[in-house]
């Protein structure tokens, strides 16, 4: 059995109301220690009001080579952007 501590991805909420954002990773034996370590590694200058830790193993990611099939279809759908429609100035912001 491997004795290496697992890798954790660390997410910090910078301010009340904001989403947690990924700030980096670290190793820790369990979630509780990962939070403690994250406190020391990533919030030494008051960077956060809340910490989330997720074991890196549990993150599934899209692959960069799937860029085409994933995102190209939205390129032709320009009408999803409000500026696609001409709205006369007289009627106000919309």
């Amino acid at each position, binding site marked *: 059995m491997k004795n290496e501590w697992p890798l954790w991805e660390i997410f910090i909420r910078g301010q*009340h109301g904001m989403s947690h954002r990924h700030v980096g990773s670290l190793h820790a034996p369990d979630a509780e220690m990962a939070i403690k370590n994250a406190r020391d590694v990533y919030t030494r200058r008051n960077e956060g009001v809340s910490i989330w830790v997720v074991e890196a193993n549990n993150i599934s990611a899209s692959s960069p080579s799937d860029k085409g099939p994933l995102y190209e279809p939205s390129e032709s759908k320009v*009408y*999803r*952007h409000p500026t696609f*429609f001409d709205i006369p100035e007289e009627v*106000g912001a*919309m």
Partner: protein
Amino acid sequence: MYAQMIKSEATQDDPEKLAAFQARIDAGEKIEPKDWMPEGYRKTLIRQIGQHAHSEIVGQLPEGNWITRAPTLERKAILLAKVQDEAGHGLYLYCAAETLGVTRDELTEMLLDGRMKYSSIFNYPTLNWADMGAVGWLVDGAAIMNQVPLQRTSFGPYSRAMIRICKEESFHQRQGYDVIRKMAEGTPEQKKMAQDALNRLWYPSLMMFGPSDKDSVHSAQSMAWKIKMNTNDELRQKFVDQTVPQAEYLGLTVPDPDLKWNEERGHYDYTDPDWSEFFDVIQGNGPCNTDRLAARNKAWDDGKWVRDGMLAHARKKAARKHAAE
């Protein structure tokens, strides 16, 4: 609005904790799912966010009705994209509600058996293409009026969902205005259709903001908790003030003979909708209540084998992977 007549739940919590909680809200802090919160706050929010989510989902039906019959391929693609956005809005909101300890299936079941409501507006039919214009312009316009202030609501996940939704709504209203403008500037028959759509949807749109403030007895607690940011009449007035010039630009007449600019107030005076009709629709007696619920129930029942099949497949795959390890 998308959430109408949300009754604030009574709360029986330790007064000291309640005061500290209120102080956080007054200081503009956001409440997050794992923070302590009064039971009444939690329950009221589940009901409000749930009703909001249901409205996004049921709200796809009146517009979905016209996707296959859009007049051009471009209009069809646009309408499809708009309805797809609404599905997304429903999902953001269900997820926000789920952080409060209710499950997606519970919320769905409460919609399907009528224990939870959705906005009264979606119980009106969409009779022709002009209605696609009027819905985007008026219904999404009214929704925006309500959702913009909710970006500042006290519950973090709700506020963040609103911020995301508001970014997407501008497209909805503009595509609607573009549709109705084409018709208003078209042949006399088309212009007549545009006017007819406005005539039918004007008052139902005003009803979206909920009953008049004098009959809206549940607001105070929700406003203190920053679950509700404005009174119903405030938002309705804002909507009227914004929409009247837009109708005038189109050469359309708002179906309210008493509508007029009040110099002194700096607002339009307008006629309230027929509130007995509103309460009737809420009670289930609108023109489309039965159809809408039947459509959602059918979608849920017909989708069961897909949901079950996907889950069975995922479980099988996980078991196989487990066995290989």
